[in-house]
Every structure is written in structure tokens, then in C-alpha cells.
């Protein structure tokens, strides 16, 4: 074990992988939020077909491991599409983002739905009784409160998604774990390298948790004065 050497040699390589891990996470979570919001609204809609589509999507994603989902997207889909257009290629980066955003979207949809349902019905009635339309009530009254309730679960899902990028190393995405594998392949420094990888994950996720604590504090429904009195 030569931790100093690993730190010196592997860090540049791992930082490259870390960049990709962070990049894929941010893009996939952003797309996942959009998918999640749509699926949440579909699942809460009055239209039975929309509701069914959302329910099936959430059921399939939640009922299968992400590794299998990644294999289907990366190896499976191209095979089918190539029957129609033989020149079709899908790179690991795109496949990774598709997999991760579809995966996060399903969980986020349920988190959003839970948040909206947690807002008491009286809030909606109060807003409607003042003359606000359904959509204005949603935007002005329900969603801000739903968001606050959802913050802990949202952060939780972001953390899971960031860590799940490591699964994408199996389809050859050159993210943190994949880079580490390459390095240990030649150096045999398993312990030091993977400890270093773990430390990298810990750092990003700690930063995210600090950010979420800050956001949660900002959304406290109390004035500063009373908070001090507690």
C-alpha cells in the first residue's frame, strides 16, 4: 500500500472521472425533474389514459434494477433501432444520461406527488375562495408548500442519483469508478484507490447536504426572532 503514490498518480485520472460523474448527475437530475413533474401531473390528472401511462412507467422503473435498465438502454435499444437504421450508434454518455434521468424521473414523480398531497386541502380552498383560478392556486399556494415538504426526499433522491452514476461504469461510461478500475488494473493499489474514490463521493455529497440545509433553513416559515428564542 502506497497511499502517497496513489494520491499523486491517480488523482488527475480520478478528477477527470469526477468531472464526468458530476456532469452526468447534473444533466440527468435536471432532465429527471422535468420528467418527474410531468409524470406527477399525469398521475394526478383526471384523464385515465395519462394516469395509466404514468403508473406503468413508474412501475417498470421502480420494479427493475438500474443496472438492467442501463443494459437495456445501452445494449438493447441500439440493437432494435439498428434493424431500422443500421448506422445507429449510442455512446455511453448519452445512454447513461437517458438511463439515469428516466430512473430519477420515476422516483421524483412520486416525491412531487407526495409533496402536493401533503398540502392540506384547506389551502386550495382558501386560495380558490379568494378568486384564484386552479392553475394560479397551484403556482402561488400549493407548489411552494409542496416543494418545502419535499426538500428532504428530493435531496435524498439527488444523492442516490449521484451515487448511481457508478453503476454506469458497467456500460463503459468513463466516470469516477470506471477511471479507478482502469488505474487499479495496472497499479494493483486496490485499497488506496477505492478509499480515494469513496472520499471523492463523500466530498460531493457533503457539499450537496450543506446546500440542502441552507435551502431548508431559508424555507422556514418563521421570522428570525422566534427562531432564536427556541
Amino acid at each position, binding site marked *: 500500500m502506497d497511499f502517497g503514490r496513489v494520491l499523486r498518480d491517480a488523482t488527475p485520472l480520478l478528477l477527470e472521472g469526477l468531472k464526468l460523474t458530476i456532469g452526468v448527475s447534473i444533466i440527468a437530475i435536471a432532465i429527471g425533474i422535468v420528467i418527474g413533474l410531468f409524470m406527477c401531473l399525469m398521475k394526478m390528472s383526471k384523464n385515465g389514459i395519462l394516469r395509466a401511462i404514468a403508473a406503468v412507467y413508474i412501475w417498470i422503473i421502480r420494479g427493475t434494477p438500474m443496472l438492467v435498465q442501463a443494459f437495456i438502454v445501452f445494449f438493447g435499444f441500439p440493437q432494435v433501432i439498428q434493424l431500422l437504421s443500421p448506422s445507429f450508434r449510442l455512446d455511453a454518455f448519452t445512454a447513461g444520461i437517458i438511463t439515469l434521468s428516466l430512473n430519477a424521473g420515476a422516483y421524483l414523480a412520486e416525491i412531487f406527488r407526495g409533496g402536493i398531497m401533503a398540502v*392540506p386541502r*384547506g*389551502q386550495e*380552498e*382558501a*386560495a*380558490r*375562495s*379568494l*378568486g*384564484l*383560478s386552479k392553475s*394560479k392556486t397551484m403556482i*402561488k*399556494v400549493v407548489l*411552494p*408548500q409542496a416543494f*418545502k415538504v419535499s426538500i428532504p426526499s428530493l435531496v435524498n433522491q439527488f444523492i442516490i442519483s449521484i451515487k448511481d452514476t457508478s453503476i454506469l461504469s458497467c456500460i463503459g461510461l468513463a466516470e469516477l469508478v470506471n477511471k479507478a478500475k482502469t488505474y487499479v488494473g495496472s497499479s494493483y493499489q486496490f485499497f488506496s484507490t477505492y478509499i480515494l474514490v469513496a472520499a471523492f463521493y463523500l466530498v460531493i455529497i457533503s457539499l450537496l447536504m450543506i446546500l440542502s440545509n441552507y435551502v431548508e433553513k431559508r*424555507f422556514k*416559515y*418563521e*421570522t428570525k426572532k*422566534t427562531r432564536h428564542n427556541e
Partner: protein
Amino acid sequence: MKQKRQDTMNKIDVNEKLIVKDLHKHFGKLQVLNGIDTTVSEGEVVCVIGPSGSGKSTFLRCLNQLEEVTSGTIIIDGYDITDKKVNINKVRENIGMVFQSFHLFPNMTVKKNIMMAPVTLKKMTTEEAEKKAEELLTRVGLLDKKDAFPIELSGGQQQRVAIARALAMNPDIMLFDEPTSALDPEMVGEVLDVMKELAREGMTMIVVTHEMGFAREVADRVIFMDGGVIVEEGSPMEVFLNPRQERTQDFLKKVL
């Protein structure tokens, strides 16, 4: 107030502020309202009393269409609000409502609670709404709480803010759904005082209440409901001192 209405609404020329005709409301098989007929004149204060489950809250909630009616008509200021063509959001701007459990927006300060609707619905600029909010808070005696959040107020204070919030839209009818039922006894008075003041100023008010003292003192008319119908109505003197119906007598014996 009339220019607030949409031109597309068909105005029926009547003098009464509110006319309810043969109002029925069913929840599935459960019949909650079984044909309500009544009228309310401008400036009148009507208290609706009755045992729980008598349909009085549902009746009140039908008046601003928080509950869709099964059949019957409700005419407010000459406009049939049960007509699907009527823009119910516009109608509601003129009908303030106060709920049993306040329903203040917990994520907004007291002032923002009051300003939200007039600003969102573009009835006032932010400055106007702010001025209005402070004016209303002075009226309900809570100006010093303008920057507090609802959670920091007592129940009575929250309900007074809720009244101020409803008044911010300059409604000409106010509906109160058991406004003091969720309050600690010592806070009931402060809320009733605000309501009495409002009644004195000539606001048309329909109040579902268990506060018989308030009904006796403030109401121009008392409606006793049971089993989804109006059993008896009249002046507080008539209903409280000389009830004609046996059901009214029974009820009053229990609550007075």
C-alpha cells in the same frame, strides 16, 4: 362593484343580494341539502344554526361554489352563479370566506397573506395592496404582527388575519364557516368583536355558528337548519324566544 362582472354574464334584475332557489346537494347517495329556499338582502346579517350534520356548512360552501350544487339556483347580485358559463373566479372575488381552521398560507407573512390575492389577480399594485393590508391589520388590531408568520400567532389572531385577508379583495358578501369553533374560549371574543364591527359597517354576512350569543346580538335573521332543510327562520327574538317548530325547540334546549 358592478363593473367587476363580466359582460357575458346574464344579469337578472332583482333587488335581493342573494337568492337561493330549491338548492339540492348530494354526495353520492348521501343527500346533504334537500331543497333550500331563502333570500338575503344587502347589509343583512344572517346566522345559520343547527346540529352538526344538518348541512349548514355545505349550504355555505355552495354559496361560493366550493361545493358544486346538484340542482337549484343561487343568484348573487343578479347573476346565476350555478350557470356553467359564469366565470366563478370572478364571482368569488366579491365573496369573502372565513374558515373554521383559518387556512392562512403558512409560507407567507401576515402581510403577504393579505396582499397575495389582490396582487396576483391584478386588482391592486403591490404598493396599493401593502397599504390596504396595513389598513386592514389596523382594523383587526394586528398591525404589529404584519411581518410575523401565521405559526407565530394565536388562533384568535390567525382568524383575525384570515378575516383581513378575505376583506382585502373588497368583497360585498362575507361567508363565515364556524369561525370561532376551532378557538380556545378566551379567543372567541376578539374574533366576534371584529365580526360585529363588520356587521355594524353594513357588510352582508352569512355566518354559520354555534355562538348563540353572537347570533342573538348581531343577526338580523336566524336560520335553523336540520336534515338539509331550513326548519325555521326569523328574527333572533322569534327563533330564540319563541320557536314554533319542535325540532328548533329541542335543539335550543340542548345548546342554550
